[in-house]
């Protein structure tokens, strides 16, 4: 790159900015380039693996695209009848997006406070469990209060579960990454205990099945697109969209958000400025857990209705929140878009995928690979930003040295 340096640059100055530096500049300008490039690179690398193992990456990705229902967007006029495949697929993608938006926000919010919440999966499970308990046990309640109670209780439960990690961080300095990992596994084993044989939340009609009870119809969130029997899209989707707005307002238009961001930039400076840093840690984690708990509630009351021990073991969606938040740069809009992308990827590589086009058991693992690559590349571009800043500082220092 430096070979192409403009001629009018004096030799003692920095060489012309390289690729990485210009990328960083675009990033700072709020550009979409880095996340888009990150995703493209990850998909390319995934495609290379697919090609190297003797499959056609083009047909594989086309299969995933169609499986996610993304083709629906290009079939104008839009046909909203979900008995047709692409409309159905899209509704399922949006159902997954609902969850991913919220578990993504659960990672994004504490990130802005300088905390890394790996416990989204555990907080999601706690929300799921509490929503199931409320849904099964308060069967005599009318629909609206029942649904609201379930959502509220699960949200609070998620907040408390994450708040433990925040409290430990504030009170003893225990690293939130370690404590949230531990809380994840406590939630996973706790869930297996609760839903398992002889567990307190096991169903009452089949003692042999290690599954939870099915929630009462009054606790179902109404479906607005598709059939209520065939996992239609429920109003929880709008709750998730509203959560994006709440996230943005909370972070950018409230004192709490200002303080959280201040702590995220520099805890020492924030403390010097009179912000109670420890309190912010607890609050940021609790809000984060509330998002994840809400995700669990919407899933349970929206379309799962019951959950088994095997589901607890297999569930991975909370971990995807990390990739969603990182790709979305921990912003509201970014998280929304990244959640839609991953929602499509997740559904399009599993149940949505036509097995004749590409083997779903391969495709599901391709998702994990792409997820890993995206997180890896995002981790590296934090470095690009860092490098860009360092060079700028160096240049400023040199300029300052030159003028004195």
């Amino acid at each position, binding site marked *: 790159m430096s070979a192409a340096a403009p001629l009018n640059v004096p030799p003692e100055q920095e060489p012309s900015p390289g690729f990485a530096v210009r990328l960083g500049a675009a990033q700072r300008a709020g550009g979409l380039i880095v996340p888009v490039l990150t995703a493209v690179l990850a998909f390319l690398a995934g495609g290379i693996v697919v090609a190297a193992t003797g499959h056609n990456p083009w047909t594989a990705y086309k299969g995933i695209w169609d499986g996610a229902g993304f083709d629906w967007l290009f079939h104008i006029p839009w046909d909203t009848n979900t008995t047709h495949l692409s409309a159905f697929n899209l509704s399922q993608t949006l159902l997954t997006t609902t969850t991913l938006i919220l578990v993504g926000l659960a990672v994004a919010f504490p990130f802005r406070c300088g905390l890394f919440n790996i416990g989204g999966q555990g907080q999601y499970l706690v929300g799921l469990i509490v929503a199931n308990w409320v849904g099964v046990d308060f069967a005599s309640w009318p629909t609206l209060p029942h649904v609201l109670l379930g959502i509220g209780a699960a949200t609070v439960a998620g907040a408390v579960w994450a708040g433990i990690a925040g409290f430990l961080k504030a009170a*003893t300095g225990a690293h939130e990454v370690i404590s949230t990992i531990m809380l994840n596994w406590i939630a996973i084993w706790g869930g297996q205990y609760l839903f398992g044989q002889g567990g307190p939340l096991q169903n009452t009609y089949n003692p042999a099945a290690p599954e939870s009870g099915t929630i009462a119809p009054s606790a179902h969130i109404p479906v607005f697109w598709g059939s209520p029997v065939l996992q239609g899209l429920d109003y929880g989707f709008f709750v998730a969209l509203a959560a994006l707005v709440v996230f943005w307002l909370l972070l950018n238009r409230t004192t709490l958000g200002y303080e959280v961001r201040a702590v995220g930039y520099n805890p020492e400076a924030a403390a010097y400025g009179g912000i109670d840093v420890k309190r912010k840690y607890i609050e940021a984690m609790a809000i984060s857990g509330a998002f994840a708990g809400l995700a669990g509630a919407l899933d349970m009351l929206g379309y799962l209705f019951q959950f088994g021990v095997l589901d607890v073991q297999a569930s991975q969606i909370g971990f995807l929140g990390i990739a969603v938040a990182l790709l979305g740069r921990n912003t509201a809009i970014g998280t929304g878009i990244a959640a839609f992308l991953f929602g499509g990827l997740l559904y399009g590589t599993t149940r949505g995928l036509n097995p004749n086009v590409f083997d779903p058991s391969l495709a599901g693992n391709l998702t994990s690979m792409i997820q890993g690559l995206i997180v890896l590349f995002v981790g590296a571009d934090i470095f690009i930003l860092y490098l860009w800043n360092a060079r700028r500082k160096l240049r400023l220092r040199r300029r300052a040295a030159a003028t004195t």
Partner: protein
Amino acid sequence: MTNHAQALRPETRFGLSPKVVAVLGCALGLAAFWSAIPPFTARSLLVPVAIGVLALAAGIWAVSRGVRRVGWGAVASGILGLGLGVLATRSSSANLEVVFRADLIAQVLVFATPLTFGALGGMVSERSGVVNVGLEGMMLMGAFWGVYGADKGGSWAVGLLAAVVAGGLLALVHAYWSVHLRADQIVSGMAINFLALGITGYFFEQLYGNQNIPAGVSTIPNVAIPGIDHLAFLGPAIGDLNLLIWIGIAFVPLSYIVLFKTSIGLRVRACGEHPRAADTVGINVYAVRYAAVVVSGMLAALGGAFLSIGFGGGSFTENMTEGRGFIALAAMIFGNWRPFGAWGAALLFGFSTALAFRLPVYSGSAATLFQALPYVLTLIAVAGLIGRSVPPAADGRPYTKQ
């Protein structure tokens, strides 16, 4: 020695330092429980209570003399031993015979071995200043490529080699990201986990499709110790263990010696505590960290290979490690970033898993809940309730050369 140094020497009683008393207290707590189960099977309440109270007293005395961590450990062990011992005296002898046969020890070692390798690996990496939450992924790589190597290479030795290479390669990515690119090490570690899950799952499906790993894959042999394998108690306990279990046990003192008694270990620890100082005296911080992370991946991969071609008998399933890498991480933290501590924690966690497999004779649901114990204990440990877990000072901080 000055008077000052003498004043700091710990108080002793009966010629025992508080630390030794505390360790004895831990052992007594175990003994309280031990007394009530086979082969001793004390049926009287008095025996476990007496021994447990003794352990409690030793612990309290040690804590009052300033040995907090091990002291509280002895107190906890005393309470647990007493409680479990009393429970055991109430239970029927037949049930006890089912749960506590001598092969429980063998089973504890089986469950502890992957954790031992993982925890030692994590320790090596973190001692050099690189946080490794990617242990799970490196283990998973070892598990899959281990069985693949054993299948295609025809020998478990090839399998182990393949596992070590695969784990090392994945660790190299983590090293490049954390040392060279100075990326966030936790982000990178999590990425490693996702990546390994995808890679192993994808290639397992690609290479073996819907059939499983063919039967008869060469597996790591057991070592029958002549003279011990036919003894009454020791025979089923340690007479016929997998080779990798012994290697894992051998790695514990080995890593202690390398890390704390050699100049190589000093360099590694210097990079983890104060990289700038290490750099100043001419240690290549980058090279040390690279090496440590790669070794960590290799060790974790051995733990993974044990799952597939050791005790697993030549099999693989997607996501085979099922969070063992995270328990290994927990064991490392619980063991305070020290080899014997990490091993002790791995044994404790292995014991809780082994017990959970046998507890269903009493209550299936309680056995499930028991599996969460390692995580609860680690949470308590990081919270500093039983003595603070202190990571190396520069753990997780990228180093920039000046």
